């Protein structure tokens, strides 16, 4: 290891040698045991669970990506159904706007 005073000037060569003079790192057997414990722990978490998480994450991502466009399309369809579509569609759309909670009852769906 070279001390800073060993060099007359801080040249490029000095920088390279200073970099090379860093103390070496010894990774202990304990470090390796800890690493392998972590690896095994992570492996135990892979498989079906991670696949499900992967699909869920992918679906959620898609949902958010198209949420804006989906909302616009839904609004457009609602307005179309309310003002331009005949009979039952208009009634259903009217119900949706005036009594959104009412839609939850099964009979409304059966009679609409």
């Amino acid at each position, binding site marked *: *290891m*070279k*001390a*800073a*005073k*060993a*060099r007359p*000037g*801080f*040249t*490029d060569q*000095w*920088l*390279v*040698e*200073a*970099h090379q*003079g*860093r*103390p*070496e*790192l*010894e*990774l*202990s057997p304990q*470090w*390796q045991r*800890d*690493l*392998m414990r*972590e*690896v*095994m722990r*992570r*492996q135990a978490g892979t498989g079906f669970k991670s696949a499900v998480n992967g699909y869920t994450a992918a679906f959620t991502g898609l949902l958010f990506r198209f949420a804006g466009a989906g909302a616009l399309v839904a609004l457009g369809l609602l307005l179309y159904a309310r003002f331009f579509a005949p009979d039952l569609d208009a009634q259903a759309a009217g119900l949706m706007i005036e009594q959104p909670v009412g839609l939850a009852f099964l009979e409304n769906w059966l009679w609409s």
Partner: protein
Amino acid sequence: MGAALAEKQIPNQGPADEEAIARVLAGEGQAFEVLVERYKPLVAGIVAAKVPRQEAPEVAQEAFIRAFESLANYRPIKPFANWLAAIAVRACYDFWRERYRNREAPLASLSEPQRVRLEGAAGRGEADLARFEAWELLDWALGHLSAADRLALTLVHLEGYSVAEAAEFLGWSGANVKVRTLRARRKLRRIISRAVPAGGD
């Protein structure tokens, strides 16, 4: 990436990398230890040269865990050592990005009293700085660079990788690495010559 990596003396014993990788991918996680054992010196060398000493074991562990988790993405068109080296370099880069984001001192290789002493000595000339190891002074100066500039400069200027190799390690364009290296080198010289008015070349 061959020449620089070859200098790291990768041990080549036991089953071939492909065999160990196949066993890990088949669900035999314990087989990963073969790769850890073989490439531990390589990763330790990469990490020790780029992050503070006390943080290096943790960053080395992070590099191996990332490699384990993305092992299915490894394609044997290039040596496993190169693939792993790129992961280790990126782990170092992420370490510095996180460190800078948290606004912690990026000079953690030095203890706090040492850092204060070095800050005080900077500007008073080489005599005061002579109490520090050369690499400590270099670390202090590197701490004034951004994470990206620091990594680019370390790889190209201090470790002798080509711009193309560094770009592959970091996943950046060659032009980006080149510009960053030049800029960082100029800045580092300025920092050192300000700290050591009598020095410079």
